[in-house]
């Protein structure tokens, strides 16, 4: 199963991450839009992940992503190293229902050399030459994120974080956790409507106050820097990782 996950500042559903780890899964294919962090590190650490397609994985100021880095060294996950605009291009192709989007700036990178699914084509609209890379559509099965609010009708307010909409357009279904559910229809007022991802794209919405914790949520609460540092320290070893997860109440149900 291919799962699209947002960048750390856009609205990460850590609440759903914990639930996924409790329930278990295997060989997940994660698509980071366009980079990953704590969420990806925990899913890898818990053994749920087979493949990671990403432009980067890190804990930001808290340092490298320990379980990701270990998995890379072990070769226990398949890596599809990408770059931010290529992830965006692949999602845009899925949004438009087209097989690929062309993209410049990749020729000469080792990213291109290792990505057999990216193809070089001479731009058919140029007189001669002008090689350009074709990025195939990325079509996740599920997009998962956390947002400030949704209404009773399933419309989700994502504000200006339009990468969340891009993920949803490209994915078959979108699952969202929110801080709160409001009574009024968010599409009824042009001011709120401007930031709405319509219910059309949404499979389910669950309420999860502080659902991005220890990440922050824009306009709502800041990241819990101490907790991110605590995780970064603890997860340096596999044992430390599992001990940390047990401490925060996340153990596989099995």
């Amino acid at each position, binding site marked *: 199963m291919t799962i699209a996950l947002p960048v750390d500042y856009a609205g990460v559903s850590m609440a759903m991450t914990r639930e996924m780890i409790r329930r278990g899964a295997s060989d997940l294919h994660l698509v980071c839009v366009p980079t990953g962090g704590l969420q990806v590190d925990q899913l890898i650490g818990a053994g749920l992940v087979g493949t990671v397609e*990403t*432009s980067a994985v890190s804990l930001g100021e808290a340092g490298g992503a320990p379980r990701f880095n270990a998995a890379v060294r072990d070769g226990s996950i398949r890596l599809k190293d990408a770059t931010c605009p290529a992830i965006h291009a692949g999602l845009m192709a899925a949004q438009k229902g087209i097989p690929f989007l062309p993209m410049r700036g990749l020729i000469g990178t080792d990213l291109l050399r290792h990505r057999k699914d990216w193809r070089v084509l001479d731009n058919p609209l140029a007189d001669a030459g002008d090689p350009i890379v074709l990025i195939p559509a990325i079509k996740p099965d599920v997009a998962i994120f956390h947002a400030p609010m949704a209404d009773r009708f399933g419309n989700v307010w994502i504000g200006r974080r339009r990468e969340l909409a891009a993920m949803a357009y490209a994915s078959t279904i979108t699952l969202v956790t929110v801080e709160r559910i409001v009574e009024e229809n968010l599409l009824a007022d042009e001011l709120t409507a401007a930031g709405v991802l319509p219910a059309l794209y949404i499979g389910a919405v669950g309420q999860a106050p502080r659902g991005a914790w220890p990440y922050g949520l824009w306009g709502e609460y800041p990241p819990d820097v101490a907790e991110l540092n605590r995780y970064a320290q603890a997860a340096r070893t596999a044992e430390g990782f599992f001990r940390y997860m047990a401490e925060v109440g996340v153990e596989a149900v099995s």
Partner: protein
Amino acid sequence: MTAILSREILIYAIAQLLDGVKHVAVGASSPIPAAGAMLLRAMKAAKGEPVPRISVLGSVEHNFFTNGSAELFDCAAQGRIDAFFLGGGQIDGVGNVNLVGAGGYPQSDVRWPGSFGSAYPYSVVPRVILFREEHSPRVLVDKVDFVSAPGVSERGVSRSGGPIALLTGKGLFRFDKSHPGFILDSIHPGYDLDEIKASTGFKFQHADRPGRTASPDGSTLSLLRGKVLDEPAGTYGEFAAKMRAELP
């Protein structure tokens, strides 16, 4: 007047490298490039000249984009960004940048976060300034282990941007894309050519007696220590705070 700090030399060097740009994008976690851009703006304002637009990337509070994280790349593609900064785990003598890892791929001995969006702005933004304070053979290598973003492109490949300079804690290099390679432009106070050579893993051109990196004059320094750092908690308040903490 207190002594000029080494970081003030860097900030002033950046302001000079940016001279003439209309729009520069800087990372929220890059206080020195940001301060360089802000200093240029203050210098232009003081002379009554048009000031550059400074866009702070990745800042939640000062986010000036409204179309998600793709907008920066689109904006660069549209030619709306004149200057940009790039660092790297490794930078080599032809301007290649490695943000992925050292020693093998995909099972790297040392894995860094990844390429982020490096290659694209490197290929379309006219003035990319490579900035890395650590100047050591570990960072400035003969050949990067992984090309996240290439310094130059083959003939026939469409490319409107690329590196113009490499600024480290020890010196300033200009990039000559026709060569391609770096030319030592100036050495920061406190260092000499032997030190630069010993700490640079790639070959570079240089004058027999390279110049010294310029220090800001009195009025520029007071702009830097005043307007730039003391700017109240307005648009760049968070930088000012960071800079203030870093510059005693």
